């Protein structure tokens, strides 16, 4: 995997931070964006497109920057810090899936559109779980010149706003393959809900949805692509969590410096100073977790990749969740208000944990891998 030069990557992150500070401030730009319904791409999507970020990890041959996982993490850290809610990460992962599993024709049609931002995509991976019902599989079968996809997917992000979905489904023979499914068609039904981090998700019902098989029907290539996209997803989410924790620690320190009780700033109390020190230690662990996630992406041995990725997820989830809980605690009642950003970092982290399965799923993966 290629990556940007250190200078290019840093200046991209700087430009992104500045643009988000100017146009996506928590109390103004972001707040306006949050008022939009589930059918529209948020305004911040245009801002990210304008910076060319959709092409971050797409090779130059397809119009992208040719960046690597470290570049992805720099961007994700900024998006985490600014609490960005947009289908950017999903679209980026979809582009990687197309790059790794798509046919040359699919790459030529989909990638430039994804890079320019004309096309937005969401990943529909998890199977829907009706309450008490057993798992509902999603199946695909050839129909006419294409495929039909039937089943259900739970909590797919940004479905209402994006153009296409990348749906994983089981084909004859029991293998899993990806299908590019237009999101607006009679065969795709959805009910949108807002999650605590402000993002829109929907439970999807796929009922004879028309789709196109991604790539040639090559099971080995498909599953390798699926694995590497999952590793990238963990690396990106670790970095997003890290960005959130860094910002929350800064806010907490500023609060402790200015808030006075019993005649002195809270920051003078040793108990609270020690807590801040522990938060800083946890943050260093989260930074290292993000590094582990990069090692996972770059690992040659698949078993090592799975192990490093799960270690990264475990450490990042536990460290950042704890840091964000403490950030609220040290803000006192103010930390409990919707008006302050500090609680929103925690809200986002709950969603990230739910998406990845957080520490418990990472532990289960490690137990399985080392068994």
């Amino acid at each position: 995997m290629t990556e940007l030069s250190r200078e290019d990557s840093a200046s991209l992150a700087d430009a992104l931070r500045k643009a988000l500070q100017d146009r996506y401030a928590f109390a103004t730009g972001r707040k306006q964006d949050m008022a939009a319904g589930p059918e529209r791409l948020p305004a911040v999507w245009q801002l990210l497109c304008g910076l060319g970020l959709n092409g971050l990890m797409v090779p130059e041959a397809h119009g992208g920057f040719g960046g690597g996982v470290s570049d992805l993490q720099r961007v994700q850290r900024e998006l985490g810090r600014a609490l960005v809610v947009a289908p950017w990460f999903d679209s980026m992962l979809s582009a990687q899936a197309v790059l790794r599993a798509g046919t040359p024709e699919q790459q030529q049609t989909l990638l430039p559109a994804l890079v320019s931002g004309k096309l937005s995509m969401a990943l529909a991976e998890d199977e829907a779980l009706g309450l008490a019902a057993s798992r509902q599989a999603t199946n695909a079968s050839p129909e006419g010149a294409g495929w039909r996809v039937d089943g259900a997917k739970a909590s797919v992000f940004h479905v209402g706003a994006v153009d296409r979905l990348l749906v994983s489904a089981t084909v004859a023979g029991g293998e899993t393959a990806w299908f590019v499914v237009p999101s607006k068609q009679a065969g795709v039904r959805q009910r949108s809900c807002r999650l605590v981090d402000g993002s829109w998700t929907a439970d999807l019902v796929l009922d004879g949805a028309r789709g196109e098989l991604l790539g040639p029907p090559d099971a080995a290539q498909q599953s390798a692509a699926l694995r590497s996209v999952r590793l990238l997803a963990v690396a990106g989410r670790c970095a997003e969590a890290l960005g959130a924790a860094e910002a929350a620690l800064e806010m907490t320190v500023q609060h402790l410096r200015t808030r006075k009780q019993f005649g002195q700033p809270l920051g003078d109390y040793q108990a609270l100073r020690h807590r801040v020190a522990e938060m800083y230690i946890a943050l260093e662990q989260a930074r290292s977790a993000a590094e582990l996630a990069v090692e996972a992406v770059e690992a040659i041995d698949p078993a090592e990749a799975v192990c490093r990725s799960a270690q990264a997820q475990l450490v990042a989830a536990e460290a950042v969740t704890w840091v964000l809980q403490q950030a609220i605690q040290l803000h006192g009642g103010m930390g409990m208000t919707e008006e302050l950003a500090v609680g929103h970092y925690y809200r986002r982290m709950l969603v990230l944990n739910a998406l990845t399965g957080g520490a418990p799923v990472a532990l289960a993966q490690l137990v399985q891998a080392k068994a």
Partner: protein
Amino acid sequence: MKTESEALQALRAEIRAFLGSELDRGLRARLRRGEFPKPEDLVSWQRKLWQRGWGAPNWPREFGGTGWSDIEQLVFLEECSAAPAPAPHVFNITMLGPVLIRFGSPAQCDAWLPKLLSAEVLFCQGFSEPGSGSDLASLRTAAVREGDEYVVNGQKIWTTSAHYADWIFCLVRTDPAARKQQGISFLLIDMKSPGLTVRPIISIDGRHSLNEVFFDSVRVPASNLVGEENRGWDYARFLLGNERASIAGVARTRERLAYARELAARPTRNGRPLSQDAEHRVRVMRLEAELEALDRTQYRLLGDASSPAERVAGASVLKVKGTELYQRVMELLVEVAGPVGLRLPGADGFGEDPREPLGVAHLYSRAASIYGGANEVQKNILAKHVFDTTP
């Protein structure tokens, strides 16, 4: 060792039977899902308790209470939490009633206690201020005596249910010159008074239960002063000390853990119930063990064998450990629920899936270690106790 007398067992059975027949099923279901009770739920439930003679478990009989001991009150709260049912109205019954009984005039008791019991009026609590959280005694809302009235100016914050309460009991500063604990008075104020405004605070869970209350030259009859002028701090400490029986919330946490167990028995994303996952089971068992221990701590500290100083320190032990366990269980619930449990309510509330409100309930649970004396403050109290009493 914890053994329950036959009389206590009989009381427990009687309470359980009452809850079984009287608690509205819809309300029970909503509380089980993790939703807040509605104002009308609180009123109708308080009335049912009152009609049964259980409107005030913590008041003496002669004032319309049950006359129950601390342990009997605890049994009652345990059964309410397990149902789950709302507790008796916290501001009317747990907080204000005992203050009026102990420090109020006979006329105030006659006027207020029946209305508190029957929920004819609902009170809210005006203690915290923007500059006075943990350092409550630094509060600045001022009440100046003019003839037979007080004129109140200032602001309260984090006022739960102020948006529908009829009255507010407030700590106000009546002597700005005195040492900070000594110039505070306890005043009852009509929420409909001219000059009083309420502004909502939307909390981290996206819901509205908290408020700011502003007082702009609000005129309050001097007869609404409780007890003596400038003794309000003593009354407030008495009030907060009365929360002992409910402070650990063991039964509430147990009920949440039971619910987590119920949800974990359902299949997850890999098709296997979480309840079969070894790591999950270990966590549940650990929580169960710690809750059992906290339950015994609570009975020991509320029992007759403990000294007054041990009881004060005990309240801090119960608060810290109780809220830590509660938050851990609420964390477990959100994990069990997955993304479905992180939904915000739509215009017409939550959807059908019972897991939906668990995320917002979890978010709100982060307040448990902040309100009612932040856990950091409780640890200061405890540290002092340990150093003062250790030979």
